[in-house]
């Protein structure tokens, strides 16, 4: 999963409040100025001053004495009105049709059907809910005004704030009910679509259906690689476009080693060898994509019946513990910004190199620095899950059947690097797995050594990750590429320790909070705009805001003054004159004109990106799609953003309505 932002809610709030205050200030000044201009045009400059003052001061009691009771009453009316329009019904109907036919595009045979299913339901829900929010909010007030039914409300003792808030609350309530229904149905749709079971291919469901592994260590059935400890193999039947490879593995443990759990259901038998060691035979169901099946062995030995449980791995909500900082180092050991660029168009990942034949020792590495790395965050587990997603860039073919090897090493981060000793673990090499989340089980006690700050060995032994390595809460993970002339691509969000899993349905619910926030912003926007615009124009305005909201990151990227090739005017000029992005313009009037104009355009774009909500910030679909828990910081950010927009838009709507004859 692509993760770019790692800040906490409080870190975000600092900057967010400042931006909010700035926008409020600009809006207030601009509002007063525009209001004054309009009033001056209609009533003259002196009268205008009094009118504006009156509007501003009379708004205070409206805001202060807004009654929740009246808001509730208007909300009830809004609900009735929306139900009468049957928009909700149509939305629910489209959603039902979408789910009915959506299964056609969930093509069997993909390794990650879960991603497709979840992406599909979230995208569909998001689009429908936003559309519904836009329609019910944009048509409400203008229709009331057109049909003069608004007089049945404004002739009562209600304040304009209550008229607006009542509608937002009413529509919001309806949207929430609809969203809850859609969420529940979506959950069932995904669960039903993904649940499946397999059977072993063979005459019976015992070890008799298994075949021995040939010496080539490749499957006799599929010719694919098998695990090192596999002694027999079988395959399951094909369901949902895939089948699983089953392996009977044999692992021998010393009595003092950690033994397989007694509750493990996949143990065929356990034998004590002559030398006292214990051999376990277990049946493993290999993963397809990121799902597998729990293996149940009924009985022991060769006659035991083997059956596979439902799919596991689809519904997960990993709780990742990310590094606070990722630092790349080049092959000379110097820190670099963002790693090596191998020429990929998408620059999310930086690359580290595995050395060159002419200089086999490379100091290139990716260093992940963890803070607050304490055992309680992992529920004092004995084995930690380190998960990685890496990409490989080969500069030559090398051994085709061998994947590029990466190196993993842990290191302590002393408070005082000049005096404190450093604990370094032994290097562990592993073959990389691309385009999936690679899981490495890390024993809490690992082999390593303690060295002095100048590199002298103090002692070797087995050290505890938390008590020795991260005794000050700081901890470092180094990733290196172990193959000459090959490269490994890595980003900060690619490496994390998995602290456990959250309850899936709760995470699914949190995912819908993002959509709810988007919906509330759109409803508030629709209501606010409809106080002074006609329905079609309100709809158009809302659509524009939705579109801008979805492309906010792109607009902000364009508004970045450091963007190569300059702003829009400069870029256009370069395109016309066929000058690449690196060519510097000659100094002169034209260049100054272009640069200054670009500054204005860029600043306008920058401001515009804040006038519309950044929907990417309110969108948690990637978390659900890739199976990550949505942390509370992100939820709080989304809720705060939505609240800020709703409050801001209510104020705008209030003044717009207040200035209309209708509400006086």
């Amino acid at each position: 999963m692509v993760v770019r932002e790692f800040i906490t809610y409080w870190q975000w709030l600092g900057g967010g409040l400042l931006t909010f205050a700035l926008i409020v200030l600009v809006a207030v000044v601009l509002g007063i100025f525009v209001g004054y201009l309009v009033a001056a045009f209609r009533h003259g400059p002196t009268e205008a001053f009094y009118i504006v003052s009156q509007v501003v001061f009379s708004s205070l009691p409206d805001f202060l004495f807004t009654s929740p009771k009246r808001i509730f009453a208007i909300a009830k009316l809004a609900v009735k009105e929306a139900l009468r329009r049957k928009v909700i019904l149509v939305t629910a109907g489209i959603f039902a049709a979408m789910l009915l036919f959506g299964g056609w595009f969930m093509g069997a045979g993909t390794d990650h059907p879960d991603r497709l299913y979840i992406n599909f339901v979230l995208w569909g829900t998001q689009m429908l809910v936003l559309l519904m929010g836009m329609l019910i909010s944009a048509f409400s007030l203008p229709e009331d005004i057109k049909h003069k039914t608004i007089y049945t409300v404004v002739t009562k003792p209600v304040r304009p704030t209550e008229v607006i808030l009542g509608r937002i609350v009413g529509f919001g309530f309806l949207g929430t009910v609809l969203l809850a229904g859609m969420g529940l149905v979506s959950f069932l749709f995904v669960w039903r679509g993904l649940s499946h079971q397999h059977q072993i291919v063979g005459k019976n469901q015992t070890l008799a259906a298994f075949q021995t592994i040939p010496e080539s260590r490749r499957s006799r059935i599929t010719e694919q690689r098998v695990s090192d400890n596999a002694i027999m193999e079988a395959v399951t039947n094909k369901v949902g476009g895939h089948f699983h490879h089953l392996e009977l593995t044999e692992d021998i443990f010393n009595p003092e080693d950690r033994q397989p759990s007694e509750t493990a259901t996949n143990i065929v038998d356990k034998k004590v060898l002559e030398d006292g060691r214990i051999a376990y035979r277990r049946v493993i169901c290999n993963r397809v994509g990121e799902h597998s099946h729990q293996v149940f062995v009924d009985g022991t030995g060769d006659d035991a019946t083997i059956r596979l449980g439902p799919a596991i791995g689809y519904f997960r909500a990993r709780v990742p513990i990310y590094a606070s900082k990722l630092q790349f180092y080049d092959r000379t050991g110097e820190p670099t910004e963002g790693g090596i660029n191998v020429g990929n168009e998408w620059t999310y990942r930086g690359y580290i190199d595995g050395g060159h034949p002419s200089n086999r020792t490379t100091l290139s590495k990716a260093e992940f620095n963890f803070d607050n790395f304490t055992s309680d965050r992992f529920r004092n587990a004995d084995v930690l899950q380190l998960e990685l997603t890496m990409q490989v860039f080969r500069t030559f073919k090398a051994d085709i059947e061998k994947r590029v090897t990466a190196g993993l090493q842990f290191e302590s981060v002393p408070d005082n690097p000049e005096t404190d000793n450093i604990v370094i673990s032994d290097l562990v090499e592993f073959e990389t797995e691309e385009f999936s989340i690679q899981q490495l089980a890390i024993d809490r006690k690992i082999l390593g050594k303690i060295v002095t700050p100048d590199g002298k060995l103090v002692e070797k032994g087995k050290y505890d990750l938390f008590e020795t390595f991260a005794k000050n809460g700081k901890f470092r993970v180094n990733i290196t590429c172990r193959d000459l002339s090959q490269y490994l691509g890595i980003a900060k969000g690619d490496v994390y320790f998995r602290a456990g899993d959250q309850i899936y349905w709760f995470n699914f619910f949190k995912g819908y909070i993002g959509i709810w926030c988007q919906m509330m912003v759109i409803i508030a926007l629709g209501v606010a705009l409809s106080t002074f615009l006609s329905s079609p124009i309100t709809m158009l305005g809302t659509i524009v805001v939705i579109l801008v909201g979805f492309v906010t990151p792109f607009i902000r990227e364009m508004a970045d003054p450091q963007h190569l090739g300059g702003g829009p005017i400069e870029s256009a000029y370069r395109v016309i004159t066929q000058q690449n992005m690196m060519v510097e313009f000659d100094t002169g009037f034209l260049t100054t004109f272009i640069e200054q104009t670009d500054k204005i355009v860029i600043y306008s774009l920058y401001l515009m990106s804040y006038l519309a909500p950044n929907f990417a910030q309110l969108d948690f679909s990637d978390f659900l799609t890739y199976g990550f828990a949505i942390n509370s910081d992100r939820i709080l950010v989304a809720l705060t953003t939505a609240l800020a927009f709703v409050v801001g838009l209510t104020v705008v709507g209030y003044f717009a309505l207040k200035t209309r004859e209708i509400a006086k």
Partner: protein
Amino acid sequence: MTSFTPFFRKIIYLACIGVLLIPLSLVSRPGTREANGKVKNEGGKLSALREEHDLAQAKIADIDPTSETMKLASLGLRGVAVNLLWMQAIEHKKKGNYDQLRSTLEALTKIQPNFVKVWEYQAHNLAYNVSVEFDDYESRYAWVKKGLAFLKKGIPYNRRDHRIIDKLGFHTGIKFGKSDEKTSFRRLFRKDDDYHQEMADRLAPESYDLGGDYGPDSWKMAYQWYAYARELVDKGICQQKIGDTLYHMYRPAQLRNMGMALQTEFKTSDTIQEIWAQADREWKDYGQIEITNTLGITTKLNQVAQFENDRDALREELDEIVGKHVRDELMAEILDQIGLNDEQREAMDTDGSDRTDAQIQLVRSIERAIVTADANLDTKIALQSPDSERKRANRLALEINKKNLQINALSKDSNTVNYRYWLSRNEAESKDLTVAAREATYDAEQMWRQSIYDDEYDFNFKTKEKTVTKRGGISLFVDAFEQWNDVFEEYPILRSGELADSVADSIYHYKGMLDVTNREWPDDHPLQKVIDFMTEDAGISGVPTTEDLEERRSGREEEPTDDSDEDESDQEDSGDSETKSNNQEASDSDQAKSDQANTNEQGSQDAGTTENKKSGADQSGNDDDKTESESDDNI
């Protein structure tokens, strides 16, 4: 009155719509047929046009409700939807979201299902560009299959177009059989029942199962795809959409590819020999098919010799009228103008029946040069005929020019598909002579792999006789080379090309063994003449030529007979350095050979599939390159 105005306006609108529907219904009225299929009523103009140009959806493809629903759901904005989906697909590919890419492609092909190039392009994207993004070869194999499965889905939507099926044949052959991972891929393919079942609705798995250890073969599957496409064309279900020369070439070409692949994977056998025999038969059949080229000339590839004889007979007739000296004089002028080297002159001077294959090729190229230099040579000769015979001479010149045109067109087509080379190769490989050479080479290569270079023998001290118990690589290679020499004697054209390259590999192995055992290259190497030719023609290096051996011999003769210790020592040093030098040359020659293999016209290089992972070359982005590699691969 005012309140009625909108009502009346609506009535008028409805009436207008109703009126306009009448002509629309008339021009769109569908035709009707009788029970026997005979057209009863042609229907409206639009309907008739749709029928005439086979534009009806039902004619092009099976009606897919999903596809039709999606097309309708786009509310006339199909183009916009297609653009958005294409952009989404590009974005997914860029970010490595390949499952989402595949899902986007599913939607994309639902709204433009009858656009063959979309299927071809995106299948290529999956099978080539996406597959090479994976470091794990098993994943790469899986994505090649996904690309092919995607392409297969396009068949029912384009049932009147055989190009999708042709592409299935092409990608099946090339990706499994010629990519860098071919050994691993073909091994996985043999055991991949799941994939064979996936394709079973179009190709029965047994149709490409060779049985025994060979199992299902990817090249045979490619052959069957082409055969399936040709069957549809023959039945009139599909229209032939590519030129005759390539259209008829693809299917038989897969057989020789299969033969070549199996030869590298297994010891040669009756099965492989039979595959080559079938390749030979089908290639010869191909030579007898009438092919119409882009100039509109219809010929058969095996007619070159006949056309040349006809033309020569016509020339003789013309020369009888004007006298042979006229041609000789004009020819001498042109040849001076072209400037021939000794070899070319020798080829020209040799009598037609005595010319070797190489000389025949040379003479043809010179004749083409002559025609280029002066296309009107025969016309000029005819102009010098006596007035009484002028008419006849002009007619003869005209016919000669016509024949020249045919020969040139045919030679061009023949060269495009390398017809003559593969004619000889298929025939040679299906003969016992070549099979024996291959078997001998296989045995020798086994010894080389095991580093068993010399013969093992029992020595009888009484009789002083040696009984060889196990032959080593060196002597086995010598036997193999003797047999290869016989093959090259019979088929001189094979001295360059893919076969020669594989024999050259064996020569390098043999030389390596000599170097390790500190032996000299023999003066009477069975393939010495072939090596001389290869050195000159195919650019191999690092192996002594006859010239080198003569130099060595003359050097020996000049050496003093009474050796001193010092001299011996010098010679040893010299020998060592020569060995080192030879090793270096051999090493260099590997590189040279590798380079040569990439440019060799007769080889079956795979420019499109020798991709280094993520080397930045996006094949889908360059259609020209792709087309070029396609034609190369199959020649």
